[in-house]
């Protein structure tokens, strides 16, 4: 059966490629339809099992970092950027399997969103589950935030080796009660709490309109973390592992990436790597697709920043306030992969954009909605352009030579921008690793 299914998937893949299209998730969709147990049976042959990475924010960056770090010692199978649904994982397996169905890998690191993680573990109990956070995200897809936490709980329950949990996110920490295996904790030192807010804290900030730290002054957390981020600057992140601290210069920009790297360290230690190897390897990981990526367009620097929930958006805006860009673009699409509901944009404080002396534009299917949102935060919008390519062109033209453009964008607008901007083969052409999220 596995040989047949592998042939089937590869056949679909080859046909698509002959037609000049990427494999995408269609091979996975086809195999899943005729052989729903394929993925589980294939992955069960991996000697070091499967690590599932889930949570609302940072899955892609974390998965990429963890696969890279574990790759210093193991042959690692991972699902490509953004295709964090089961059929994306099936497609990845079909892609790399030999024609006889065999996988020449030691372990897999799979990014799965909350709903699919819960489904996936029913078929394939993972050795390790890493849970990053629970944020108010594209809630229209799953329902409510507590429901999302329950989905993650099902993944945690299914883990056979260990779980890696974020000590500082109360909804994630509470999942420890469901685990039947040891918990490895990662966290952020209390001195950094003003930078790393929990979703409830961010939400409380937004509703109260304050940017000050709220609640009780930071106290030492009662629970010990196995890996702790103890110091952070854009240039250097310092981790305490046991009694030793390790400075790391991460290539992926942004404070939240430094927090996710703590999860990577914890998971890699669990797989038997030593702290020195892990921290050295971390410094070599390039930014994941659209997560703080920097590109050059007509002499201008264009930064792509994926924005898909209030917490992540807020962090992205904060990270630009020290040196405001010449042009800021907020590109909001409301396609299925973006989330149809754009209400969450009102949970982000955009007033910081008005403090910049740069130009602000909106783009995407909800360009008008976004302009309206900014108006109520006192931000003047110079242009609103539904068509994303046209908006990019206008934004670049509005920036001075060697100027800087920052584009905050939802998923599908990001893919469109990437198609336009990347010099390497676009996601619609053969040979690229990048795949569209289904």
């Amino acid at each position, binding site marked *: 059966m596995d040989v047949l299914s592998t042939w089937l998937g590869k056949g679909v893949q080859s046909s698509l490629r002959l037609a000049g299209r990427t494999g995408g998730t269609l091979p996975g969709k086809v195999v899943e339809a005729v052989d729903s147990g394929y993925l589980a049976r294939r992955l069960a042959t991996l000697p070091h099992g499967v690590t599932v990475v889930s949570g609302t924010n940072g899955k892609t960056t974390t998965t990429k970092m963890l696969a890279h770090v574990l790759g210093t010692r193991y042959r690692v199978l991972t699902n490509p950027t953004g295709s964090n649904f089961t059929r994306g994982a099936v497609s990845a397996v079909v892609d790399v399997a030999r024609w006889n169905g065999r996988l020449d890998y030691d372990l897999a690191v799979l990014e799965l969103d909350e709903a699919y993680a819960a489904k996936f573990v029913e078929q394939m109990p993972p050795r390790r589950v890493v849970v990053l956070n629970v944020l108010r995200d594209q809630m229209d897809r799953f329902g409510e935030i507590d429901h999302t936490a329950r989905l993650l709980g099902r993944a945690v329950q299914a883990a056979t080796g260990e779980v890696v949990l974020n000590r500082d996110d109360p909804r994630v920490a509470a999942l420890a009660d469901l685990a039947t295996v040891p918990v490895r904790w990662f966290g952020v030192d209390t001195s950094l709490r003003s930078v790393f807010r929990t979703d409830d804290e961010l939400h409380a900030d937004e509703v109260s309109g304050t940017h000050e730290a709220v609640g009780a002054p930071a106290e030492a957390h009662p629970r010990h973390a196995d890996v702790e981020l103890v110091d952070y600057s854009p240039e250097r992140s310092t981790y305490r592992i046991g009694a030793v601290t390790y400075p790391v210069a991460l290539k992926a920009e942004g404070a939240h990436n430094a927090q996710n790297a703590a999860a990577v360290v914890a998971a890699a230690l669990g797989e038997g790597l030593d702290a020195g190897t892990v921290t050295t390897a971390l410094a070599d990981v390039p930014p994941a697709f659209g997560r703080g990526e920097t590109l050059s367009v007509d002499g201008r620097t264009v930064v792509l920043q994926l924005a898909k929930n209030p917490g992540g958006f807020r962090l992205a805006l904060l990270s630009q306030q020290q040196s405001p860009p010449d042009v800021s673009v907020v590109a909001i699409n409301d396609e299925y992969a973006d989330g149809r509901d754009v209400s969450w944009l009102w949970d982000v404080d955009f007033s910081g954009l008005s403090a910049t002396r740069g130009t602000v534009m909106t783009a995407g299917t909800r360009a008008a909605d976004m302009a309206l949102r900014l108006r*109520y935060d006192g931000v003047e919008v110079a242009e609103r352009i539904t068509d994303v390519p046209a908006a990019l062109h206008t934004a670049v033209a509005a920036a001075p030579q060697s100027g800087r453009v920052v584009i905050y964008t939802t998923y599908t607008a990001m893919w469109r921008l990437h198609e336009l901007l990347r010099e390497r083969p676009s996601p619609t052409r053969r040979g690229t690793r990048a795949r569209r999220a289904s």
Partner: protein
Amino acid sequence: MSAVHVVHLYAAEMNIYGDNGNVQVLRRRLEWRGIPVDVTRIGVGDPVPSDTHLLVGGGGQDAGQAVITDDLAAKGPDLRARADDGVPMLLICGMYQMAGHYFAPFDAPRLEGVGLLDVRTEAGPTRLIGNVTASSDFGPLVGYENHSGLTYLGPDAAPLGRTALGQGNNGTDGTEGARRDNVIGTYLHGPLLAKCPTVADHLLAAALAAAGMGRDLDPLDDRLAAEAARVASSRPR
């Protein structure tokens, strides 16, 4: 000149999907007209300020709804008296349900509401999720619904709107939201008031009256809101 006092009820406990935006819209639309405004957030255990001129409440998670039930029951008589005095109220999603007589979940005890609106809510089999457009006395309404409770109107509640797209109160009778005098309940996030400024101005006019500052509201340029509403209405469910 005294100020219009907007009270955000359960701002910490019941506030999801941009509900806070309704308060922001109300605040700004007063400020743009040069009318002083104060916003107070109150939560469990806080009294409703005596000089409340406009009250806003939002949606919540399961946990949030359970946390406020007892406190809301205690505030009930006070809130009903304010509504009878003409104090305008906007109650979204979870607070809309709790503003009715009760919300009856499948697998948990019935949550008693405060009866500000003559509506009752029963657990439904599926979540009703997606874009909504509706017609109303205030003009077109556009927003986004995300609820599993099915709400039915009693004789003393008028529907806020009639759905053109989406499920609304219960997916069967074509109604969306409910109204009794100046008390408005609705499932529409969005937030509703941003793209439906006529509803905002109706609430503000009533708030000014409640504050003894009755005056006509100067018109604002709402062309951008109209454009955003038109675009939203054209999007898939």
